[in-house]
């Protein structure tokens, strides 16, 4: 029988990168919790703007790309590792969009001054986005590390992908 040089790496030739895929799913879940929290807010007509439209579209794009990433990183695809890190970084950038703007905004509604986002909600959605970003970045980083290791191992034992 062929000698197995590195059991961990050899096993990776036949098993999925389940941890990266799971982290991507986690990022999707956290993002879903984020937009449920934002979209269920009903503070006057603050959210009836172009910004929320862009946010909705970006959410859909994020969900799609994160799902594609989950499938890609599962199969040790480097491209999806990089994409996963990129969408993770964008999740952090999003904090500067709706959450921060809403938190710092006050609107007049029925003669009353209303704070659009309370501190508790701001912390909640920020934590969700940060965790989602961490999950995406970790998924990508793990995928890239494993992919390069696996490529090197394949070269060492002289097998094609």
């Amino acid at each position, binding site marked *: *029988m*062929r000698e*197995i040089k590195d*059991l*961990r790496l*050899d*096993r990776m*030739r*036949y*098993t999925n990168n389940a941890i990266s895929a799971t982290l991507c799913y986690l990022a999707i879940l956290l993002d879903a919790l984020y937009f449920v929290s934002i979209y269920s807010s009903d503070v006057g007509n603050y959210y009836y703007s172009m910004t929320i439209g862009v946010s909705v579209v970006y959410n859909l794009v994020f969900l799609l790309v994160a799902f594609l990433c989950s499938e890609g990183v599962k199969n040790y695809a480097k491209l999806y590792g990089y994409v996963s890190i990129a969408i993770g970084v964008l999740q952090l950038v999003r904090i500067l969009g709706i959450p921060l703007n809403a938190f710092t905004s006050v609107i007049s509604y029925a003669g009353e001054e209303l704070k659009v986002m309370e501190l508790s909600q701001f912390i909640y959605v920020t934590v969700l986005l940060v965790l989602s970003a961490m999950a995406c970045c970790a998924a990508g980083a793990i995928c890239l590390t494993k992919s390069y290791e696996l490529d090197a191992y394949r070269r060492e034992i002289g097998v094609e992908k």
Partner: protein
Amino acid sequence: MASLSLKNLNKIYDNDVQAVYDFNLDVKDGELIVLVGPSGCGKSTTLRMVAGLEDITSGTLIIDGKDVTAMPPKDRDIAMVFQNYALYAHMTVYENMAFSLTLMKENPYVIHEKVMAAAEILGLTDQLNKKPKQLSGGQRQRVAMGRAIVRTPKVFLFDEPLSNLDAKLRGATRREILLLHKRLGATMLYVTHDQTEALTLADRIVCMSMGYVQQIGTPLELYDTPANVFVASFIGLPPMNFFDALVSGDTLEVEGLSIPLSEEEAGRLRPYDGKFITLGVRPENVDHGSDLAIKVSGCENLGQTTLVHGTLAGHKITAKLREWGSYAIGEELSVSFTRMHFFDKETTNRI
């Protein structure tokens, strides 16, 4: 690996149909036993009782000295390979083979080593990342066998594993099973209705009919000394020719034809003098001679041999001649019987 003992196993279904009657068998450690018989003879039911997939109505099943009659299938430490492979379509070959060990919470690295070893044995190393639908029938059946091997069970059970394969693949996979048995030295119980599989694979064959065991013996014993008319007709291809024959001193009378008996044969048939018996002659035991004349009704050339179909005193007969022959329909072919089998007409047992 382990020994296996089946004592007085009976299977009666809820509708009072009895599928298996008093099945007794002792399988030695590392032995390959083939259960053979026509459809509905109870061979698969027996195997399923061993696997625990059918309740045993009465009797005792002992694996490696332990009574497992009432034990659930998962605790019996056996692995079964099915006719239809029973692979998970959404899993790769590797995942299919590793699945049972994963369920047992085995260490992933141990699983990997076992799967790789099994894949090496079965020649599946290059197929491990493929899904079952990307494999041929023979490869799928090898995966099913691999899934059994990785568990290193006490007993392997095969339920007509080659029936879904075409003739060429069946031959190749049969040889692989034989090599696997030699390599693993495993105790195996193998069910088939194909006598060629039975004769080529088995250490011992259990021939069954209508729920009863007809004969247990080595392939040569079943071929050479069949216990009764059923075994004689089931084992051997083309099947044995049968005639009603009257024992008359040192000769057998078949519809006016007289067939001389050897001293030993005449001695064996002495208690039947003046009575009718069943005479059995294998096609390969019909050869050119001068005793009898066959009226040819058809001829099949098989390369090394020629099958000649015809009639002998009004009875259909097939001869397997070791030659490339060509015989016209209606032609008379002179033959002799080089070996004959005699069966009691009433009990159908061998004389």
